């Protein structure tokens, strides 16, 4: 059949509404039947790019980590294969159907994992110092977390693609900016950890470490030190992780030890805190309660001990982004130390009287910060 364009135009001229109807109905039909697929294609393309970045970050940090080990440590045999197997280690959290007693189970699990990794790494290298060991643990944690991010995002993405299920990709689309923010921070944390430089999270230990200068330091718990000083007729007990190791120590156990020596009248915790959008970096905030992050076991212990002994807890935090918290300490954060110390002394004056005692805990990773 020959198509006569002139005849078609004449027909259109007679009935323009029919053509318009066709023009409008076609996209509607396409969107009714293929709308979700189109959205899936658009969303998945964006997510695919981010997954590519996550893969790149995992590979580059892994390479960085293995190069660091090869260039800086004396290993008894090639460590690459064994370290490679650590990257895929996973942790099965305890059953939470009956939450009674779950904290001690999580605590046991986390500490067993740390002990195992510590033992395995120590066995691989000769003359490994405790600083290097803690740095290796941190570096390993970075690579493992990035690998976990990559594998889980890829899993969700591929499942949504395989099932051609648009709603399945929505949670991932919402979460991916936060995952990427943390992934970039983890990737950028590598140089500071390798060089043993302080990170933003170390502001608490840095302030308490400065107060500890010239005092006699004693072990309070594993990788945790304490000392005693005085301030305006008050006894000050100072507690922090043992620097310059890349560790947060065990402040819960440390608190338990100090309480067995002398019960303080007040506990003040100094920590880094994630800033809310719109808040300034290195701004200082005061509040109530145990200022400590992590999985929650240390906070539980501190809350439990202070509640049992009727000791109030005050918090002093330095606001920062996740990137600032785990990468090289910025000048603004380092400069905030003096103001935080002034606030701390003001807090002690306002909340205690002469003759009372205060426990000050510097919470955070004390890498590159001694005492």
């Amino acid at each position, binding site marked *: 059949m020959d198509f006569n364009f002139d005849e078609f135009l004449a027909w259109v001229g007679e009935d323009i509404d029919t053509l318009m109807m066709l023009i409008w109905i076609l996209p509607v039909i396409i969107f009714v039947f293929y709308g979700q697929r189109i959205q899936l294609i658009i969303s998945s393309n964006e997510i695919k790019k981010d997954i590519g970045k996550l893969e790149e970050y995992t590979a580059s940090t892994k390479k960085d980590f293995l190069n660091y080990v090869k260039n800086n440590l004396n290993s008894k045999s090639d460590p690459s294969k064994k370290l490679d197997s650590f990257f895929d280690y996973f942790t099965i959290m305890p059953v939470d159907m009956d939450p009674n007693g779950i904290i001690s189970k999580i605590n046991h699990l986390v500490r067993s994992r740390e002990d195992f990794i510590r033992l395995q790494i120590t066995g691989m290298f000769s003359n490994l110092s405790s600083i290097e060991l803690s740095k290796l643990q941190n570096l390993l944690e970075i690579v493992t977390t990035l690998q976990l991010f990559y594998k889980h995002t890829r899993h969700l993405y591929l499942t949504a693609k395989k099932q051609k299920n648009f709603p399945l990709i929505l949670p991932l689309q919402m979460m991916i900016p936060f995952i990427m923010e943390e992934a*970039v921070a983890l*990737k*950028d944390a*590598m*140089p*500071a950890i390798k*060089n*043993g*430089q*302080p990170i933003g999270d170390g502001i608490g230990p*840095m302030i308490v*470490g*400065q107060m500890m*200068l010239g005092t006699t330091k004693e072990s309070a718990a594993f990788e945790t030190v304490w000392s005693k000083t005085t301030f305006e007729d008050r006894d000050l007990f100072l507690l922090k992780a043992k*620097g*310059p190791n890349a560790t947060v120590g065990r402040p819960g156990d440390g608190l338990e030890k100090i309480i067995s020596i002398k019960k303080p009248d007040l506990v003040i915790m100094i920590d880094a805190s994630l800033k809310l959008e719109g808040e300034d970096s290195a701004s200082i905030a005061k509040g109530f309660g145990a200022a400590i992050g992590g999985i929650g076991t240390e906070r539980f212990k501190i809350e439990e001990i202070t509640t049992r002994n009727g000791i109030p807890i005050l918090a002093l935090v330095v606001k920062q982004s996740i*990137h600032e918290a785990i*990468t*090289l*300490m*910025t*000048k603004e*954060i*380092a*400069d905030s*130390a003096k103001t935080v110390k002034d606030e701390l002394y003001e807090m002690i004056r306002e909340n205690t009287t002469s003759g009372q005692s205060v426990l000050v805990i510097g919470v955070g990773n004390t890498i*590159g*910060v*001694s*005492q």
Partner: protein
Amino acid sequence: MSKSKNRISTCYTSMECDSCKILKKRKFSNGDIVFSIPEGCSECDGKMLITKIFGVIMD
């Protein structure tokens, strides 16, 4: 030094003499630790205490 979105962070070590209180800033060198004493004071017989180690971002 770390790189992210073309931002390079340079690490500096800040020191203070425990005697004459003179302040000095230099680029970070391996082994620098906050509250350690890496060197003596060039102005007096005091010791230089590392008070800060921080990064400055240059776009």
